[in-house]
């Protein structure tokens, strides 16, 4: 199927996109587009945009109008209990009022607003997950999207809402063929209610011509527990911002990242762990394995607000440099505005494989390549071990296999 794309991202295109949509959504898109036009394009003067230049962002490809192939499998028994899992456009048609209550209601941090706004104005795809109060979804829900070939702009928006005491595990996987200049501006708005529990994994396997400029916003309610995982494997340039808001008292979050990059890939991640509620816990662990001339940047802020007492937070970013041309810029920032903290700190490292580890592995008969794969696998294990859904773990290990080999390599 040929890609149907509009000329450019502008008001006329948005009129076209919103044709046939309910009036509230037409107004919502128009409202976000006005904000996009009022908001300046990012500049290197913003700390989050110092390390990725948008000068070469492929802006000429038109907006992808038809949503690409996506699969959403949901057990009918869960659907009967009120769980909704579909693409966002279908959800608007079938559950309009529910989507309306949650879509486009939130701002995000200033550095991400230009892309957050574009996505909320111009989305033509994205997932919608709604879990009603008290409903537990056992197995993982998987949303798998394959983007078509061609040069275009695609700005999907995913909306995840867990009501009080709900629980769910979600994997969003996105892939596309190599060799096409695509601007992929996907965003996600994750709202986790009182006492709810969410495991949310993103597996990114985009083609090497893709610019992935993403934004995620996660709000953790009182006593809620959230783990997010960003596994960044593909794309040419990847810039993802995470806006985590620990608003509810006693909430817990873990932000995990696995980055495996090669060739001339650039991966730039910025996070803001905003601890607003007292007795909240937020830990971040990002691990990068960098091959060839790839480069990873990390700029993460932990902010503890004056009223957020008795919080506990840690931020850790480790980079394994596997080639003389690989580079890393890990920058973990703390802004602590109260002394009533239980624990607060950060750690960042960049370095090569310990030659003693390499020597040991080789002295046991492994080839240099196998030794490296095994050591990188061990390096990733701290995150992999925290993925508590076996199907998701298997999926992510499979995606990493070209770098770290199959897990049964040692047995073979």
């Amino acid at each position, binding site marked *: 199927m040929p890609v149907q794309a509009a000329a450019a991202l502008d008001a006329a295109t948005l009129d076209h996109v919103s044709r046939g949509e309910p009036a509230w959504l037409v107004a919502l898109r128009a409202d976000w587009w006005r904000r996009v036009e009022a908001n300046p394009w990012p500049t290197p003067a913003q700390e989050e945009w110092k390390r990725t230049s948008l000068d070469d962002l492929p802006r000429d490809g038109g907006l992808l109008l038809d949503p690409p192939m996506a699969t959403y499998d949901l057990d009918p028994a869960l659907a009967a209990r009120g769980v909704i899992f579909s693409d966002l456009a279908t959800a608007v048609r079938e559950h309009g009022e529910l989507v309306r209550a949650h879509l486009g209601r939130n701002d995000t941090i200033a550095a991400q607003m230009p892309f957050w706004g574009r996505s909320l104005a111009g989305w033509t795809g994205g997932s919608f997950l709604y879990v009603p109060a008290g409903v537990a979804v056992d197995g993982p829900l998987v949303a798998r999207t394959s983007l078509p070939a061609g040069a275009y702009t695609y700005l999907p928006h995913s909306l995840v809402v867990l009501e009080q005491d709900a629980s769910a595990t979600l994997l969003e996987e996105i892939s596309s063929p190599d060799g096409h200049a695509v601007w992929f501006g996907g965003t996600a708005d994750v709202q986790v209610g009182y006492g709810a529990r969410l495991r949310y994994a993103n597996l990114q396997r985009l083609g090497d011509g893709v610019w992935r400029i993403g934004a995620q916003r996660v709000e953790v309610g009182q006593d809620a527990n959230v783990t997010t995982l960003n596994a960044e494997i593909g794309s040419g340039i990847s810039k993802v911002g995470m806006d985590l808001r620990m608003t509810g008292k006693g909430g817990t979050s873990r932000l995990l990242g696995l980055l495996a990059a090669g060739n001339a890939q650039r991966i730039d991640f910025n996070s803001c762990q905003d601890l607003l509620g007292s007795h909240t816990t937020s830990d971040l662990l990002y691990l990068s394995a960098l091959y060839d001339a790839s480069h990873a940047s990390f700029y993460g802020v932990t902010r503890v607000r004056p009223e957020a007492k008795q919080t506990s937070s840690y931020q850790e970013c480790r980079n394994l440099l596997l080639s*003389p041309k690989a580079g*890393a810029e890990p*920058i973990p920032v*703390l802004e*602590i505005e109260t002394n009533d903290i239980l624990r607060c700190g950060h*750690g*960042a490292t*960049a*370095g*090569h494989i310990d030659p003693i580890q390499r020597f040991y592995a080789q002295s046991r008969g492994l080839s240099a390549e196998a030794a490296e794969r095994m050591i990188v696998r061990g390096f990733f294990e701290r995150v992999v071990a925290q993925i508590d859904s076996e199907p998701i773990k298997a999926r992510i290990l499979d995606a990493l296999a070209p770098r770290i080999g199959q897990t049964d390599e040692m047995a073979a």
Partner: protein
Amino acid sequence: MALPNPAAAKVPTGYKYGWHDPEMKSLHVMKKGLSREVVEEISRIKGEPQWMTDLRLKAYRHFEARPMPTWGGDMSQIDFQDIFYYVTATDKAVSSWDDVPDYIRRTYDRLGIPEAEKKYLAGVGGQYDSEVVYHNIRADLEKLGVIFLGTDEGLAKYPEIFKEYFGTVIPANDNKLAALNTAVWSGGSFIYVPKGVHVELPLQAYFRINTENMGQFERTLIIADEGSSVHYVEGCTAPAYTTASLHSAVVEIIVKKGARVRYTTIQNWSHNVYNLVTKRAVAYEDAVMEWVDGNLGSRLTMKYPSIYLLGERAHGEVLSIAFAGSDQHQDAGGKVIHAAPNTTSLITSKSISQGTGRTSYRGLIKVYPGCHGSKSTVRCDALILSDEARSDTYPYMEIDEDDVTIGHEATVSKVGSEQLFYLMSRGMNEAEASAMIVNGFIEPIVKELPMEYAVEMNRLIQLQMEGAVG
């Protein structure tokens, strides 16, 4: 226009270093403000060679052209036209203690300089206002060929060495404040240690700001030739005045092959001073450069001693303590640039914020491609003593080489209630107990200070803690 200074109202009346000698007469006092004419006049009064006049004017143009930095602390209250750029207390430097005028000696007596000299000093270069008024260098150092002079005197007596190195580490256009210093610099120390000479005792100098609204723009240049070593110590206390004062120094250090330099600073500026300092060293093959930097006092300090490791196996260390009380912001840290293979560095930062004070660690580790075998560790610990205090950590790292080991770690904590309870159950009051815990926290750095500074540091922490608790 005189600026209101909210900090001044909070300075206790008994502030020990907040005196002002009424007999003091400044001999050269220019009118306030900065212009091309003021820069030319400073150079003319000093009788400088033309190249220095030209450099000052070039730097002045840079200063004019560059915007104020927008990061770091709040500098919006600085009015560059409300500052004296050149003041001297006496006409010329004198070489013996007996020749120092009485009123200046009284000031120094209160700082304890003569006693300190008896014990430890190898030479004293005390800066009273902008000019060096007292210089005493021990005869044996002179015999070894060590030059230890005021910077103005250094320019007059050793123009060749001076011209070869001045402005090479921190060029006139480096940043706005360094450009200002280059345009109006006055005083500071000039040190040259010849090849293979080890200066066993620390060289010391005291700086003070003693004229209301007078900016102090001292310029220090230290050259340690191959295989030599020297430890330079600088300590500051400033009188408490009621309008904002600016201290903007530049320190340049060249550590040649196999040489070793340690530069220790303890600063206790009064709470209305803006302390905006550029300090940078270059270290060549097998050289060692160490900055020991203690920042107390001031309204705002922005200071990031940096080291460029330019030769193989060079080593750099920055040890930094910052203490911010109410209405104070200490934005300090360190930078190390690894520009040669097998270079190593260590940055240790300890910061304490109290009342409404704010401490920020801001640092950079950069490793250029090809600098294999480089290792760096950055360790930042912050102690927050009050509910309204704030602590930030901004550690920048840019690593463009794989064969390296780079690590950064930071923690933020408060004084544990169990620790306080234990000490108070042993009969201490809360202030004493807190001071003891804080002293323990900064101990790894204090133990690196010369003995009298370590004593002073602990005493200053104690003074800060009194009235802070309870």
